[in-house]
């Protein structure tokens, strides 16, 4: 009994730590990074006026100011809205990406993962699919035509790209022969051709690019920000205000972290530092470094996603659908076939 209690307590502790680090810190920080990074890319300075006791800290207090503002604003519910779904949608949108962190190994061994699922990757895909409900229900329940358009676009886009996202992961699973993320990372510690770490990006380079593209589209951010479409339909979150809007806003950034974490785990070798204790049984210093290596990889992918977001203009809606069904899907299928043939003859 006490042992079971211990396990539950440890799991809860991990949940709190990981939620705190990834949701509150990284998510809030990303809203600052987004504004600051776009400013720096566009030769501006960006937000730097929020100050506590005269300390400006490069605008780092802006997320706090934004949070306070969101909390004290009026929480408006439209008359024609479905009250229950309207309240539920931001909660779904916010929690679904958070749940994904349950199966992501942050470091070597059991202490660094909340739940060691053998079908970890399926879990990620299933929960990511749940995330659609946030956007769809949010737009549909507000009783606003433009929000409904936004939610229709969100569901169409996410269903289209979910397919090629899943298919691209299939290639990786065929190579490594496992669905468990922890085992996947362990296998990526092997060496390819004697000099290359056997990371997903090296065994599935095409899959990596296709996955990243599909993941960006899943994320509903520019250049695939059609569900939001600020300049034309404002988007599924049109009728939301105050903290409910902030939840949608934050969930977008948490999704960025989720996608970066999944990409780092599946394609960039997770916590593996090339050629250093690939079985994860090194001394404490190495383990710490490996956790930091994972964080560094996540930050790198986030940087890449942010840079792409501030580089490309958005697609037209038919282009998004065309890219999803006519380009990404056939290429992912071809990638699987080629992988299968190569594996069959090795």
């Amino acid at each position, binding site marked *: 009994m006490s042992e079971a209690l211990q396990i539950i307590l440890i799991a809860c502790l991990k949940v709190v730590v990981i939620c705190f680090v990834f949701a509150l810190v990284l998510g809030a920080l990303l809203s600052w990074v987004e504004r600051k990074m776009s400013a*720096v890319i566009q030769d501006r300075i960006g937000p730097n006026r929020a100050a506590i006791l005269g300390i400006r800290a490069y605008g780092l207090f802006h997320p706090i100011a934004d949070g306070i503002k969101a909390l004290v604003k009026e929480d408006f519910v439209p008359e024609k809205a479905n009250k229950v779904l309207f309240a539920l949608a931001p909660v779904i949108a916010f929690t679904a990406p958070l749940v994904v962190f349950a199966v992501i190994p942050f470091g070597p061994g059991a202490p660094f993962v909340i739940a060691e699922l053998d079908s970890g990757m399926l879990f990620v895909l299933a929960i990511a699919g749940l995330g659609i409900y946030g956007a769809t229900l949010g737009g549909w329940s507000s009783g606003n035509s433009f929000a409904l358009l936004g939610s229709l676009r969100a569901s169409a886009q996410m269903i289209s790209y979910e397919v090629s996202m899943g298919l691209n992961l299939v290639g990786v699973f065929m190579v490594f022969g496992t669905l468990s993320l922890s085992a996947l990372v362990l296998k990526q510690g092997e060496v390819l051709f004697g000099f290359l770490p056997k990371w997903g990006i090296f065994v599935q380079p095409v899959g990596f690019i296709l996955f990243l593209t599909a993941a960006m589209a899943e994320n509903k951010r520019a250049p695939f920000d059609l569900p939001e479409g600020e300049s034309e339909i404002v988007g599924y979150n049109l009728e939301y205000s105050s903290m409910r809007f902030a939840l949608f806003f934050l969930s977008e950034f948490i999704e960025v972290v989720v996608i970066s974490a999944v990409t780092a785990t599946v394609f960039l070798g997770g916590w593996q530092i090339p050629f250093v204790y690939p079985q994860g049984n090194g001394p404490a210093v190495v383990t710490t470094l490996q956790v930091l290596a994972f964080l560094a990889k996540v930050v790198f992918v986030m940087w890449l996603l942010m840079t792409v977001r501030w580089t490309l203009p958005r697609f037209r809606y038919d282009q998004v659908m065309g890219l999803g069904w006519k380009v990404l899907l056939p290429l992912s299928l071809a990638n699987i076939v080629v992988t299968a043939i190569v594996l069959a003859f090795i």
Partner: protein
Amino acid sequence: MGKPVNRPSLDDPSIRSYLPEVLRGIKTTSKHFFRNLFTGKGYATKQYPEERFPYAPRYRGAHRLMKREDGRVRCVACYMCVTACPADCIRIVAAESDDPTIEKYPAVFEIDHLKCIFCGFCEEACPCDAIRLDTGEHRAPGYTREELITRKEQLLAKGGQSLAPQGGIYR
């Protein structure tokens, strides 16, 4: 002969696949990003209330009324500026002067800054070099309409002495 523009064929697979062009775009944005991040040289932003762009010497700012040598107003209430003003923002009430050498002076001289468009026509029309827009100041905003009407005393407070001979030069 126009300048020939290099238009690559859109059938080129490297363009149709987006990827090389996306990489080129990322190169451009990261060039700006890292240059600004590490050298801090590329920023175009001025931190406005603390740093300001210098105004050109001929910038037309808030009005002022010039003074005579004895400190009285140069204006002779001739209504030239009122006539020239396209926004109808100047209000003058003329009064007779005690000084026998001066015919009229403005008892009231008001500029309504809600109407003024800072075109400078009043300055050009003035035969006495009495009204000028050369203070180089922004007119400060106000909370009421009355605050935004500048009275003669306020206009005179900013005024200096003009070097031009009073009444202009006769030909």
